[in-house]
């Protein structure tokens, strides 16, 4: 038997195979992907290394890392980071808690549960911009449904989106309404993958409902929980649409999160270089968090 695998095949043949093999087949999607993701990213990095006000489109001047130094030293950036943390932690914590509770409820079989499961997903099917507009109307101080409903039980008018302390909790509340179904779906899928027999075995072993949850069910669906958190953290860091529609970052700058900050910097005062640097800060934060979370996405079935 010929053990020399390349034996008998000429260099030319091998070269031809290498050129006509995968590279040709993989090239089209690779090029598309490159143009759509890598190229803009690289361009953004390039922009971030320049001082460039779009008022003068040709006026990009190389700033190197000194631009970054300036951006990172800006207390306004860190205020935006703080607001983003507030928004993300608030949203994800509430969504995980509520999502888990709803998933446990919808996981049980009872009459109408199928309809309920479908109904619960509706918010997810709506365009965030539309959600923003609808909620803005619902939350209107004078004509909104929410304040009217509260007035019927004797609660006075609240300026949901116009009060600087109330605005962020309101933003969080709307995002909870909008995206909790996503968490529910993922956790529901996780719960449904746990065999009934395992929780039955736990109940025979002497576990109460909460002990079953704590020691058996939740550890078993841990990868799903981490996955839901990962998606939701990524998604809410870049939550732009609803905030932009409902408050536009205000009142004052009380709801101006990082991405709104980057947007305003880049496209309202046209400091595109500075805007790109803020976006880079966001990118670093996102990648770091996802890398940390991904370490916890490990199946309990593995060793």
């Amino acid at each position: 038997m010929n053990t020399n695998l390349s034996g008998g095949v000429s260099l030319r043949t091998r070269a031809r195979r290498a050129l006509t093999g995968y590279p040709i087949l993989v090239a089209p999607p690779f090029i598309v992907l490159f143009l759509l993701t890598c190229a803009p990213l690289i361009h953004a990095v390039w922009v971030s290394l320049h001082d460039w006000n779009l008022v003068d489109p040709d006026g990009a001047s190389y700033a190197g890392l000194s631009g970054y130094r300036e951006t990172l030293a800006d207390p306004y950036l860190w205020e935006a980071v703080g607001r983003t943390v507030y928004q993300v932690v608030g949203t994800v914590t509430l969504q995980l808690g509520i999502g888990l509770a709803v998933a446990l409820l919808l996981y049980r079989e009872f009459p109408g549960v199928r309809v309920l499961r479908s109904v619960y997903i509706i918010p997810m099917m709506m365009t965030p911009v539309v959600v923003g507009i609808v909620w803005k109307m619902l939350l209107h101080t004078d004509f909104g449904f929410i304040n009217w409903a509260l007035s019927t039980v004797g609660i006075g008018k609240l300026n949901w989106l116009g009060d600087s302390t109330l605005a962020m909790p309101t933003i969080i509340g709307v995002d909870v309404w909008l995206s909790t179904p996503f968490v529910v779906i993922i956790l529901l899928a996780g719960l449904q993958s746990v065999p009934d027999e395992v929780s039955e075995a736990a109940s025979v072993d002497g576990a109460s409902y909460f002990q079953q949850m704590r020691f058996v069910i939740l550890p078993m669906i841990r990868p799903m929980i981490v996955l839901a958190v990962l998606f939701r953290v990524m998604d809410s860091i870049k939550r732009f649409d609803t905030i932009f529609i409902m408050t536009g970052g205000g009142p004052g700058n009380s709801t101006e999160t990082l991405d709104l900050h980057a947007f305003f910097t880049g496209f309202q005062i046209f400091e595109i270089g500075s805007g790109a640097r803020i976006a880079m800060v966001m990118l670093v934060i996102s990648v770091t968090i996802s890398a940390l979370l991904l370490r916890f996405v490990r199946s309990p079935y593995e060793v």
Partner: protein
Amino acid sequence: MASVALKKVNKTYPNGFQAIHDLDLEIDDKEFLVLVGPSGCGKSTALRMMAGLEEISGGELWIGDRLVNGVEPRDRDIAMVFQNYALYPHMTVRANIGFALKLAKVPKKEAAARVEAAAKVLELTEQLDKKPGQLSGGQRQRVAMGRAIVRQPSVFLMDEPLSNLDAKLRVQMRSEIARLQHELGVTTIYVTHDQVEAMTMGDRVAVLKDGHLQQVESPQNLYAHPANVFVAGFIGSPAMNLYEADLTGHGLKLGSWTLDLPEGVIASRPALKQHWNRTVIVGIRPEDLEDASLATSPETGQVITSTVLLTEELGSEVIVHFELDATHVDSGDPDAVDEVGATSAVGRFDPRTRVRTGDRVDVAVAVENLHFFDPTSRMSIWD
């Protein structure tokens, strides 16, 4: 340790399907009772009701001197072994076995010792720090057993615990479980659809069909005196041959053959006289059919001459299918595959037999071992 008693227990599902009908069953302390029946007979439902995993629609369930109808599974002092083992995949074997002790707040030292002891009995000591995913099927099964025995409960409930094992391992674990149960002396209710498990493991066997209890007996009595046609056909492999036959002046008219029934046969079954000159269902166990040339002094008049349809050589015996032109009776076992046509019989011949497919063969019938059943009630005819 405790006895278990089911009194007129019923199970009706919300859709109206009644899975269990007035089940009366008493299991003594330390007894090993096997609940057997074809698929869908309600045996698992019955067991799950005892475990508390399924609500009881009617009747009473007693464990020891406690009425436990409304008691949560965790307060019933039972341990259950599931068909799929239902191990906790994220826990080590040690944690799996010790989980119940942890919940029961057994002091850590004692719990650890008990887990070690259980692991030793089940030869799992080497595997204690592995996770279920790293174990073989047989080892997982033993972990499931370990989880049950470490608790020292009053009752073991086992739901087809061996059905996911390969044949060889199943035979081994069968005797292992029987031995363990005997040593521990824990009342055990064991559900299976495998009648070999039922016959070899149980002190008594309860046969269930369509939610109705058919018979509860020791394995030997169940085999020797099946109460009705269903039990007769269900217990024993190959299954009992069941035909319609007429009791006439000369004996038993079976198809085109007439078998002499000696006085002794009739005397030992007095009720048979009332069925004279009528049709009955007759049951012949395969081992009561033998190659006449090998049978010990076959009586003429108790021999059928027939054509061999198929032989299955098992080494220690030869299963012979041959023609018999009597009307075949269905025992009502939904899992049974009907015999080739409905006009054949199955005999278990001595391995020295020379018969081959297509041969003419004289078959001796051991008439003293025949079973008779009433064709309308399908109950056995004895006295």
